[in-house]
């Protein structure tokens, strides 16, 4: 198993900096770029998903994990996506 991969300091610093930059992008796009309510919501969620992926991959070591733990994490996200998708399908088409 790839369970003992030691993530070097440099990687952690790059991860932190990219998250800080994406936080700045979140604030700037929400405050200064007006795409309408849905446009801004989707853009903010897209950036947040990118940030979450970075945290899962590098801070939580999912990049170095085996298939089992990746599947567990993916299942959590996938079922949540289904939940949101079906809730919205219901709202839009009723």
């Amino acid at each position, binding site marked *: 198993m790839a369970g003992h991969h030691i993530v070097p300091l440099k990687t952690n610093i790059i991860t932190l900096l990219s998250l800080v930059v994406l936080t700045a992008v979140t604030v700037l796009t929400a405050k200064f770029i007006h795409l309408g309510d849905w446009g*801004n919501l989707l853009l903010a969620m897209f950036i947040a998903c990118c940030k979450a992926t970075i945290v899962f991959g*590098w*801070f939580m070591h999912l990049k170095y994990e085996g298939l089992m733990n990746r599947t*567990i994490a993916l299942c959590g996200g996938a079922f949540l996506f289904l939940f949101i998708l079906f*809730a919205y399908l219901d709202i839009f088409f009723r």
Partner: protein
Amino acid sequence: MSTASYDKKTQAAHHFDSLEQQHEASKQGVWLFMATEIMMFGGLFVGYFIYRFMYHDMYIAGGDSLNWKLGALNTLVLLLSSFTMAQAVTETMKGENKKALKLIYITVACAFAFMVVKYFEYTAKIHHGMFPGFDLWKPDMAYIAEHLRSGFSIDNVDPANLRLFFVLYFVMTGLHGLHIIIGIGLMFWIIKRLKNDEFSPKYYTAVEGVGLYWHIVDIIWIFLFPLMYLI
């Protein structure tokens, strides 16, 4: 746990074949717990999205009355704490327990800083009558109008619906704050064990597990921040 008669640093518990297997099994358990965390907060996020579709104006009025600068500050504080936590795991894996201890201290300091900022935010909201409970709900519409974005009229805002936004705000950030407080407790547990020199490059499961928990709390905030404060 203190009754263990074996050296945890070099031996696995009797029901495991090896330290490796013990580590993998424990970590998998934490990952399953993480999946349940995603689904627990997920339900609240779905509620948020559904009501956002139904009462879009209330979300704009409610979100604009929050202090996004404090929200952004808290985001940075949590990101920094996630970094120190991740680096603490790295140092423990290298056997540098003293360095790991210092990094955990910084993580705890960030967690407390987050809660202090949250305290000021909550008291400000309660002061303006925006707590939806205990007869505290007397929203200061002048305050809300003052903070509203340009091109959006306060006349469109129905205080009865606005209450719903603040129910979601206090429940979601409150549950998140509870996770931070539990995280602080877990950090103190790790601090105690690091001081006792209980970890080694072969045995660091607890540090990694608390790390995973701390990062998922960070991820939840990554979604809460734009949804509540910005858009």
